[in-house]
């Protein structure tokens, strides 16, 4: 496991969660532009991680951490809005991720 590769995956997944948040909550031109920049940043981090990791490992970690961060961001947002957290929802999201990663592996 290369530390540099891991670093870029974490950075990329953070950007990934940020742009998802932006897509959901941005409602002004400046916020849209920021979201677009975040998309580019996550894409670039993803590309950089390929330099240090194999594509399948990088992809797996990227999707995995990206989803975890997005679910985390949503839980925090819900907490501040006093909304309840649906554990069933988290379960099915996890199942989708398992399916996605399994498909990727069976294709390799």
């Amino acid at each position, binding site marked *: 496991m290369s530390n540099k590769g891991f670093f870029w995956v974490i950075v990329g997944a953070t950007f990934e969660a940020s*742009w*998802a*948040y932006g*897509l*959901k909550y*941005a409602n002004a031109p400046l916020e849209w532009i920021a*979201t677009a920049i975040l*998309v580019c940043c996550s894409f670039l981090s993803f590309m950089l991680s390929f330099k240090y990791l194999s594509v399948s490992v990088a992809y797996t970690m990227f*999707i995995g951490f*990206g*989803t975890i961060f*997005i*679910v985390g*961001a*949503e839980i925090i*947002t819900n907490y501040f809005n006093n909304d309840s957290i*649906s554990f*069933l*929802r*988290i379960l*099915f*999201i996890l*199942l*989708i*991720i*398992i*399916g*996605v990663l*399994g*498909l*990727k592996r*069976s*294709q390799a």
Partner: protein
Amino acid sequence: MIYSIALFGAGVCEVLGVIVLNQMSRSKSIAKLLNFILLIATFGCSLSLLGYAMNEFAMSVAYAVWTGIGAVGAVAVGVVFNGEKFNIPKAVYLFLIIFSVIMLKLI
């Protein structure tokens, strides 16, 4: 309903984007530039539709479904266009994704 269609469309655009990306890496000069423009267009559509779908769906649900459709589409493209084998494990993972998407819609 319209939001579900938008989310599905976002996943389809994502798959198209990946196909274009593959073509771009194999093309040269002017074709590469055209592919690049197409790439921006497909990913642009994908993200716009995803953002629109998020008006209705939770952030995490929309993202997971979008990723799932992308993976299912990639397998479909591989089987239909590149003559890849379709086997039991693939079928199981496909079922898992589709089942989860339907359940997310129901709960």
